């Protein structure tokens, strides 16, 4: 795994070098914008992908300008679920532990933040104890206490008021839902949650009813940030979260703009993680993605807050003229088709395999945007950013190898084994608001036609995902034999990625994500082993095993290990992508080359 990683990096470095050379030649003859670009010193193609670009050029001061086509679902640390929002929240919130501010894989590891060190784990993985650092303060200068952290975590229980965020903390600490949440708490201090002890202001102890190997990962999510009771404005908290980090809210107009300014009460000495280079951070929201891309290219804004990659229009322009400003990271998402076993004939593994073999994987990759903007052909169901993943090395169906463009002969064999030698009819369900997904559906439809499978494409309202494909009874009723979807990890472990997709306990009547309706005792058992394992190497091994089991079941046809094209403005320094946030730039330590 490591060697593959290195060789991948070496290839990227070579590619980057080649691109820089090409760029210099074009700049020499072309002049114009390109020569401007190099004067401003863009670091080069993929210069910040899994490595740090221009760290030494970062200066204190200046205004860092984000732009976005989509506002966060909520800036309340308890409620946000967008990856970019979690990334941005580190500017104004701190956690007991957080992800390292380092590029690539290293960034997925944890480091102490408010706590003096990582957890002291005892009682067979059921008790986690932290001691708080000195000098940690709120934006009004008052110290952050262990009770503030407990209160912030308790807010996750108040799903009736503060819905939307991840609920892992609740699932791990109080799986039976005994606690009512701080707003219904009868205790005078509203700190009635039994699973967390705060013996003094500097100590916090977590008692898990059942060990979970990823508990500390969950504490690193921004939903475990402290919140001070007297500053909790409940559902209005998202308009002005009370800062524990180096920046605080100055103004926020939802859907329009957001401005952060320095929190003068934050002390660098108390924070080993955050560098806090710029003086001011702004986000401006645009209604049109093409407009946003144009402004990025013009240099009016420095980077895209959404971090989902440029749209086809801007991407083409940028790749042609400003390649040195681009990075091409792996997003951590896998794009795939999944076969609900409730829809005949997909209850039969051979019919599922027939589709996997029959599909033209290069065509699907092209539909996703090609090897650069779409990603490498997906060969299994564990994203490269998750420990235990083997990337393209594990390819049981030879999707990136011999069967790259589809293997009709093999598919026909499987159809025969399934008892459908002449093929069958089915329906592909795809979100109507994602042109790229519709394109992949069409590609799949075209290649399935060749092996006698007639697929009808049903484009459903993309905003209604939970009720349409998230409802197994509706899936069965509509006969959705193939569902086209994508999934990324909430936190980079097999549990954070695969539990809702593959564990039989997660088959829900609404909002289901186990679309294939996998009920495999072996997989459930492996997840159970995983949460009880504290040894990292063992955990990685189990992750690999789970991935193999899922692939052997033929439930999924992976399309790509998604990559995207991300814009890095000329003014930015100390830029790097991190696996903690699915290949996004790590916002919290971005700097500017000039304080102007």
């Amino acid at each position, binding site marked *: 795994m490591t060697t593959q990683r290195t060789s991948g990096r070496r290839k990227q470095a070579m590619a980057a070098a080649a691109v820089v050379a090409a760029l210099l030649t074009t700049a020499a003859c072309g002049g114009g914008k390109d020569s401007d670009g190099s004067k401003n010193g863009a670091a080069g193609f993929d210069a910040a992908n899994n490595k740090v670009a221009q760290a030494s050029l970062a200066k204190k001061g200046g205004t860092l300008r984000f732009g976005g086509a989509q506002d966060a679902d909520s800036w309340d640390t308890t409620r946000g679920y967008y990856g970019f929002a979690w990334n941005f929240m580190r500017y104004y919130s701190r956690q007991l532990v957080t992800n390292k501010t380092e590029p690539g894989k290293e960034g997925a590891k944890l480091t102490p933040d408010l706590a003096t060190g990582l957890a002291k784990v005892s009682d067979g993985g059921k008790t986690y104890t932290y001691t708080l650092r000195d000098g940690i303060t709120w934006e009004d200068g008052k110290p952050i206490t262990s009770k503030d952290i407990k209160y912030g975590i308790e807010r996750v229980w108040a799903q009736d008021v503060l819905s939307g965020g991840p609920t892992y903390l609740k699932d791990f600490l109080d799986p039976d839902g005994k606690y009512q949440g701080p707003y219904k708490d009868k205790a005078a201090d509203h700190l009635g949650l039994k699973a967390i002890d705060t013996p003094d202001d500097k100590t916090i102890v977590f008692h898990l009813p059942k060990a979970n190997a990823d508990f500390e990962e969950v504490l690193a999510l921004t939903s475990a940030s402290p919140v001070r009771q007297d500053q909790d404005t409940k559902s209005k908290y998202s308009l002005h979260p009370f800062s524990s980090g180096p920046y605080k809210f100055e103004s926020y107009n939802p859907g329009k703009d957001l401005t952060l300014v320095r929190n003068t009460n934050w002390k660098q000495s108390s924070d080993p993680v955050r560098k806090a280079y710029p003086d001011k951070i702004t986000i401006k929201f645009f209604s049109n993605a093409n407009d946003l891309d144009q402004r990025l290219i013009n240099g009016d804004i420095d980077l895209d807050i959404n971090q989902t990659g440029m*749209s*086809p229009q801007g991407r083409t322009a940028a790749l042609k003229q400003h390649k040195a400003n681009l990075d091409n990271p792996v997003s951590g998402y896998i794009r795939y088709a999944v076969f609900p076993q409730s829809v005949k004939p997909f209850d039969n593994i051979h019919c599922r395999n027939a589709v996997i073999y029959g599909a033209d994987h290069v065509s699907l990759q*092209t539909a996703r945007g090609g*090897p650069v*903007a779409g990603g490498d052909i997906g060969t299994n169901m564990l994203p490269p950013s998750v420990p235990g993943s083997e990337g393209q090395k594990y390819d049981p169906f030879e999707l990136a190898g011999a069967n790259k463009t589809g293997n009709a002969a093999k598919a026909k064999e499987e159809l025969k084994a399934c008892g459908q030698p002449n093929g069958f009819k089915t329906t592909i369900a795809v979100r*109507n608001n994602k042109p790229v997904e519709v394109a992949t*559906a069409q590609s799949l439809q*075209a290649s399935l036609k060749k092996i006698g499978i007639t697929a009808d494409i049903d484009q459903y*309202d993309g905003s209604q995902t939970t009720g349409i494909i998230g409802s197994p009874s509706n899936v069965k009723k509509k006969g959705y034999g193939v569902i086209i979807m994508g999934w990324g990890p909430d936190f980079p472990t097999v549990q954070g990625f695969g539990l809702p997709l593959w564990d039989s306990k997660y088959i829900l009547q609404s909002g289901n994500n186990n679309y294939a309706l996998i009920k495999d005792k072996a997989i459930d058992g492996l997840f159970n082993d995983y949460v009880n394992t504290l040894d990292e190497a063992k955990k990685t091994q189990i992750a690999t095993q789970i991935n193999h089991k899922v692939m052997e079941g033929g439930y999924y046809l992976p399309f790509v290990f998604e990559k995207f094209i991300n814009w890095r403005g000329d003014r930015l320094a100390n830029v790097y992508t991190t696996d903690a946030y699915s290949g996004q730039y790590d916002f919290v330590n971005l700097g500017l080359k000039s304080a102007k």
Partner: protein
Amino acid sequence: MTAPLHEPTAEAAPSAAEEAAVVSADAKAVQGRSLGRIAWERLKRDKLALTGGVVVLVLIVIALLAPVITNLVGQDPDAYHENLIDPLFGTPTGSLGGISGDHLLGIEPVNGRDIFARILYGAQISLLVGFLSAVVAVILGTVLGILAGFFGGWVDSAISRVMDGLLAFPQLLFIIALVSVMPNEMLGLSGTGVRVFVMILVIGFFGWPYIGRVVRGQTLSLREREYVEAARSLGAGRFYILFKELLPNLVAPIIVYTTMMIPTNILTEAALSFLGVGVKPPTASWGQMLSNAIDYYDSDPMYMVVPGVAIFITVLAFNLFGDGVRDALDPKGSR
């Protein structure tokens, strides 16, 4: 040549009745020309309309022969040609959207399907929906319009209010809502079949008041004419008068409105496909091609130009032809 051919037609062909009522029988005998013939003479002189008509004919032939023509050039509208696509940008490698000897109008970005073949097949959908929805509208509009005009009273009020209501109804929104709740299979149709059927019905249904109003107006003025009185005094039944006396005299305005309605329907179909509620992929449709082309207007403008031009030419041809037909059938029209 005149007499033996003409005499039975004067008796039997009611299509000449209107002209006959206005022009005296003597003049008719002297000219020896039916209304259709007069109109045709006029139309022949209108070069613009004739060109439109020819284009329309060619389009119909192309649509009917789409499978044959695409076979001749050796292209399948659904076949992917990804080897001709630049993997980095997803656009065709060749210039002008990949136009070449094999691909006469270039290829689609991302999947490389032949645009020429898809335009031909797209013509099938456009014309099918355009014509059939016009037929639905004409049948409904004529029957209801004639009833309203002839019977008057509460029948007229009821039908007229329904027409007012339908004209005010947001039909695009309605069809978008309707299509999303439509089952995948119905009446033995599935997928694209259902969508086409629904589009024809809905566009036709919302189009009939336009014809209905005209027919009603014409009927109102015609029912007081002497020949109607004459038929009535001879004891003719209502329905005889309606369909044997009045209807033949309404043929001219109906034809005119039909030719004007078809291009509007084609545009509506394109708009619906553009909005994603038209035919289902992989069936080709011009509106859908336009909608896909939005993402590539910069990098592959030809992809937008080709279906745009196809829609433009079709609608223009129908409009020119329709104008010509109107002038020919109704020289008194205000133009």
